[in-house]
């Protein structure tokens, strides 16, 4: 019997499964799902991975402010970081600044918080979105907070690994520089994903599999020790993002 799970649990699980034991995972501000994923990875198959979560007490070993964190990133010492944006475009650029005109925007967003460096210098950046709509997945972002694709004259250590939303996983086709559909979550269809994406979305390598949902073991960890940790950092999120009893 398939256990019930929330979209947040699915997204966190998909991310956590990517991590190889020993890889370093860094999480920034406004990132409850990545925080959940990082802690789940540590609690399951990556117990030796270092996890740093901005805004937490338990996952912040630094001695003074945020300089060590950003310097580690700039030195290429992070395997994973997570970014989001009010808008993500076909080329994987993100917008955390403004919708509309920059100087008098329709909507002002919180700002980039280092993402213009992090997207370039972290080996694998995972973009996450808590919604999947034509307004969020646009042809071109109104403001480029950071970009997946840059000219060769710019030093770049890493970049986009994949994009995860409550419906699907998208990846960047390196030749075309455009996002394509990699997998569709259970309960959703290719048509639905395409209807909710504001640009044309080819199937990656001609095929989109079904995303593997969380197992009972993964859910038990999520709803147990992982939830306890996440509650300390994102209490409002923890209250609603984790499902109830399994089975």
């Amino acid at each position, binding site marked *: 019997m398939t256990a019930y799970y929330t979209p947040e649990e699915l997204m966190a699980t998909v991310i956590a499964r990517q991590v190889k034991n020993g890889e370093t995972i860094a999480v920034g501000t406004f990132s409850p799902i990545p925080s959940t994923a990082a802690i789940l990875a540590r609690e399951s198959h990556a117990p030796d991975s270092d996890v740093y979560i901005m805004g937490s*007490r338990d996952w*912040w070993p*630094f*001695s*003074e*402010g*945020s*300089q060590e964190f950003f310097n580690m990133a*700039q030195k290429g010492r992070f395997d994973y970081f997570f970014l989001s944006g009010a808008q993500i475009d076909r080329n994987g650029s993100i917008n955390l*600044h403004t919708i509309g005109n*920059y100087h008098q925007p329709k909507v002002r967003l919180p700002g*980039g918080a280092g993402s*213009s*460096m*992090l*997207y*370039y*210098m972290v080996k694998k950046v995972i973009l996450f979105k808590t919604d999947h709509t034509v307004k969020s997945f646009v042809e071109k972002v109104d*403001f*480029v*907070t*950071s*970009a997946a*694709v*840059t*000219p060769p*004259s*710019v*030093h*770049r250590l890493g970049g986009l690994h994949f994009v995860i939303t409550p419906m699907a996983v998208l990846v960047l086709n390196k030749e075309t520089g455009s996002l394509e559909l990699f997998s569709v979550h259970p309960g959703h269809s290719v048509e639905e994903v395409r209807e909710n994406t504001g640009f044309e979305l080819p199937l990656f390598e001609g095929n989109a599999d079904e995303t593997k949902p969380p197992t009972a073991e993964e859910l038990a960890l999520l709803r147990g020790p992982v939830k306890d940790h996440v509650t300390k950092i994102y209490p409002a999120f923890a209250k609603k993002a984790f499902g109830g009893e399994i089975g």
Partner: protein
Amino acid sequence: MGLPFLPVRGVIGTDYTVVRPDFKTIKNPYGADEILVVPAVSPDVSLIHAFKADKFGNCIVNSSIDDALLARASQKVIVSAEEIVDTEELKTSQRGNFVSRIHVDAVVHMPRGAAPTSCGSYYSADIEVLKSYQAAAKDPQTFSSYVKEFCLRLRDGGDAA
């Protein structure tokens, strides 16, 4: 650091370079790539709330934020502190970051000086007050008098609520 600019990785290829003409792209003199440089930020004065301070300006600030760096970067620093203590107590303190008096120009004793935001183990953030601030902001007509009342309550030694 007394430098006019510092380089930063990334950023070239984003719209920061469009809206910040003061950020410049230069050729890396030690490599083949282009690199961004940003001008030094050195505020005229900074306001910092510390856990403890002595009367000479030495203080202990929260180590999970960048207050110690801000103090070093600023031309003048005003510190409000939960407690004024002896220098010895600061020098033996295990918690927080020590900021030397050489960076500080004035110290004011202000218990609950960070409220409604949190202050280490002294007090947590007052979520209700923060939410009522956000709610008051929804009405631009009455928001400025809300803000004035808010400040008056704090000045008179009351709580923000």
